[in-house]
C-alpha cells in the first residue's frame, strides 16, 4: 500500500483551493493511494530506456506565426467578471504579501 497520508491530501486540497470534508479526505487518501500503487506497477515494467510520455500525440513543432489577430472587446473580456471597476477586473485585497 502507498504512503499517501491524509495530511498530504489535505495539503493538496489547500493548494488547489478545494474544500474537502473529513470523509472526502479519507476516501481520497484511499483512492490516491491506489492510483500511486498502480503507477508504481507500471514503473516496474518501464525500464530506464523507455522515454517518459508527456503527450499522446507523436507531434512536435506546431507553431503559430507572429501575426496579430483581433482580441475580445473590453466588454466581452469583462463579461464574466464577478466584479469590475471601469475597464479593469476588480478583485478582493490580497493579504498574503508584505
Amino acid at each position, binding site marked *: 500500500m502507498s504512503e499517501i497520508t491524509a495530511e498530504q491530501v489535505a495539503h493538496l486540497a489547500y493548494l488547489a483551493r478545494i474544500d474537502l470534508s473529513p470523509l472526502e479526505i479519507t476516501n481520497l487518501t484511499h483512492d490516491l493511494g491506489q492510483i500511486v500503487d498502480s503507477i508504481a506497477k507500471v514503473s516496474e515494467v518501464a525500464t530506464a530506456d523507455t522515454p517518459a510520455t508527456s503527450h499522446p500525440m507523436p507531434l*512536435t513543432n506546431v507553431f*503559430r506565426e*507572429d*501575426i*496579430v489577430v483581433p482580441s475580445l472587446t473590453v466588454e466581452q473580456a469583462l463579461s464574466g467578471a464577478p466584479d469590475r471597476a471601469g475597464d479593469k477586473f476588480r*478583485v478582493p485585497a490580497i493579504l498574503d504579501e508584505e
Partner: protein
Amino acid sequence: MPNAEKKNRAELMDFDTALELFEPVLGFEVHVELNTKTKMFCGCANEFGSGANTNTCPTCLGLPGGLPQVNKKALESSIRLGLALGCEIAEHSRFARKNYFYPDTAKNFQTSQYDDPIAHDGSITIELESGRLVTVEIERAHMEDDAGKLTHMGGATGRIQGADYSLVDYNRGGVPLVEIVTQMIEGAEHDAPEIGKTYVAAIREIAKALGVSNARMEEGNVRCDANVSLRPRGSNVLGTRTETKNVNSLRSVERAVRYEIQRQAAVLAGGGTITQETRHWHEDTGITSAGRPKSDADDYRYFPEPDLLPMAPSREWVEELRLTLPEPPAARRKRLQAAWGFANLEFQDVVNSDLLDAVEATVAAGASAQAARKWWTGEIARLANVAGVAADSLVTPEQLAALIQLVEAGTLTDRLARQVLEGVIAGEGTPAEVVESRGLAVVSDDGALIAAIDAALLGQPDVLAKIRDGKVQAAGAVIGAVMKAMRGQADAARVRELVLERAQAIE
C-alpha cells in the same frame, strides 16, 4: 513604534564589517520580455500602454475553450538569446504548468518550463570598473508567459499593505518572457553589489543588441530577482537565501544586494536566523521587506502542459540562428573605443548615455569621432534633457554629421552651429538649408568685416589711439563691437587680426 514600521527598519551591519565576517553568495533571475508582435500563446497584440484589457482573448484569460499555440518568433528569439549567452539549445523542450492562485494570473497557472528548458548551461563574462573579469555561469534560460498588471486601491500608500481591493489589467498576461537563471556566484566578495548591477546591464545589452526585447527597464522589459545568502568565513555550508523581487533598475540591483548583505549580516551576528522568503524592494526608501515564505517547488505541482506539443528545434535551424548573432556588446565596445581613440571617461560617458549607436552612425556618416561625441553628449544631450526625450530622437546621425562638416569647413562657428542645430530640431530642414534660410554662415568676406571694423575704430578714437600706441589688449572693446555688429557671424580670431591691421592703416 507601530509594528509595520519596526519591521521595515531592519538593523544593518556596516558593509565592510559584514564582508569580514561573512562571504556573500549570489544568484540572479532576470526576466526579459520579448518584443514579438503578439503574445506567447495567442494572437493578441503584445503592446505596452494600450487601454486596459483591450488585448485579451479566451486563451490568455484562461477561459474555457482557449487553446494555446506557440509563437514561432518567440521561440526564435529565445533560442537566439540562449545562443548569445553561450547556452546549449535543447533538442527536446516542452512547457509545464506552474500552478498557483494569484489574481494577476487568470489561468491559475503560469505556462513555464520545468525540466526541459529551451536553453541551458551557458556563461557570460562581465568586466567590473576595476577591470576585474567575472564569469557568470548560466544554469538555464526558459520560456514562460507574463502575468497581468495589478493596481492596489485604497489604503494610504497604493501598496498591497492596507489596500481595500485591487484592479487587474490582463494586457500583459501571456506576453512572452525568457527567464535567465544563473548558477550560484561565489567569490564575489566586496564586488557583490557591482556584480549584480553589471550582470543585469550585460543581459539587457545583449537582449537589446539581438533586437529580441525593447530592453527598457523603466517599462519593465527587463526585471531582476536577486538571491543573496551569507555564510560565515571558513564555513562551506551555504546560508539560507532570500529572493528580492521587483528590482527594476540597475542602481536598485546594486543597492538591493548591498542592503541584503548588511541586513542578513546583522541578523546572523545577532544570533538570529534568515527566513527563506521572497522580499520586496522599495525604490523610494531603499530597503527590502518580507514577502510571502518561499513555496517549495513541489507546491507548484508542475506538470507537462497537455495543451501544447513539445518543441524540437532542428539543429540546422539553430545553426542558422547562430549566424544571425550580432557582435557581442562587450567586444564591440572594445573595438569602437580603440577605433575612436576615446579616453575611458569619454567612452564611459557615451556608453552610460546610451549613445554608442548614435556616435557610431554619426562617424559612419562622415563626422570625426571626437566631434560626434562632443555634440551627442553635450549640446544634444542637454536639449534632450530639457525636452524630456531621448537624445537620439532629436536629430539623425546624418544631420549631425552634416552640421559637423560645416563647422570643420569653417562655414559655422560652434556658436552658430548650435543655432543651426536648433533649426534642424525645429524641423526647418537640413543643416545647409537652415544656414541658408536663417542666414547663419560665418562672414568670411573681409570687405564686410573691414567696413564694420573701420566704423568701430572710428567710433572709439581713444581705443584706436591706444592700439596705435601698442596697447593691443585694448582691441578687445573693438572686437566686441564688431562681433555684435556681425551678429556673431564672424570668426573672432580673424576679426582680431584685421582690427590690428586696420588700426595702423586707417586715416
